[in-house]
């Protein structure tokens, strides 16, 4: 299972990560961080859908996300997809 780590204090709640996640794995939370931003969280607290594609981390303007992709998720299809988009 791949993992997404949030650095909550860096999140500005822009939701761009939610737009690019192919599995709708990220959603807005009810919490605000110290800066007053409404941060995001794993949808329903369930990490299992995450493909570890890293799109969320790539687009996050604030480097608030780190994605650890498990080898298992690294299917050849994913790789192919990455190449062709």
């Amino acid at each position, binding site marked *: 299972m791949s993992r997404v780590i949030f650095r909550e204090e860096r999140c*500005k709640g822009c939701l761009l990560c939610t737009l690019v996640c192919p599995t709708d794995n990220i959603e807005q939370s009810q919490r605000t961080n*110290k*800066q*007053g931003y409404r941060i995001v969280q794993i949808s329903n607290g369930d990490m299992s859908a995450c493909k570890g594609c890293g799109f969320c981390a790539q687009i996050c303007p604030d480097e608030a996300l780190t994605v650890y992709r498990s080898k298992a998720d690294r299917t050849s299809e994913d790789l192919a997809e990455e190449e062709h988009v």
Partner: protein
Amino acid sequence: MSIYQDAIIAGFGGQGVMLMGTLLAVSAMESDLEVTYIPVYGPEMRGGTANCTVVISDEEIGSPIIRRPLTLIAMNRPSLEKFQPLVRDNGVVLINSSLVEPDLTDNGRIRAYHVPVNDIAVELGNLRLANMVALGAYVRITGIIALEVVIKSLSEVIPERYHHLLAHNTRALEAGAAEIEHKYPSGG
């Protein structure tokens, strides 16, 4: 002695602190007092905190900039941390206790008023009214302006297209004032 009051009003960008400042200032003007208002502006505002300074007096006002204010409205924690140390001894600090823990208050040195303005605003149906709750409380504490004048001045500072919200704002101002009367019966 002559009338003199100054205030720093500070909070997050979206909390409407600038509007609080202008409303306070216009109310002072409508009370035939001298008044200046000065905001921070520019990239400093971006993302971070916003603040403004209001000076009210019955004499010509020299400096619009106040390093050590008599009063402070702190709408969030960073604002309290930044400005509380600057408040003059025995000065008034109004704290948005919905967002700021009470133990951050410098109780010995200043006169602190803890008002859960967010919660009151949410109760009134709209979080965005928190600023008006706070201003209502502030006016009641300091007594520098009559609450009625503040309410009357609302229509001058709120853009015409939002005038349907005047009643809500009025209620929020009143709720803030009421909270003080209730919680700090001797204060203000």
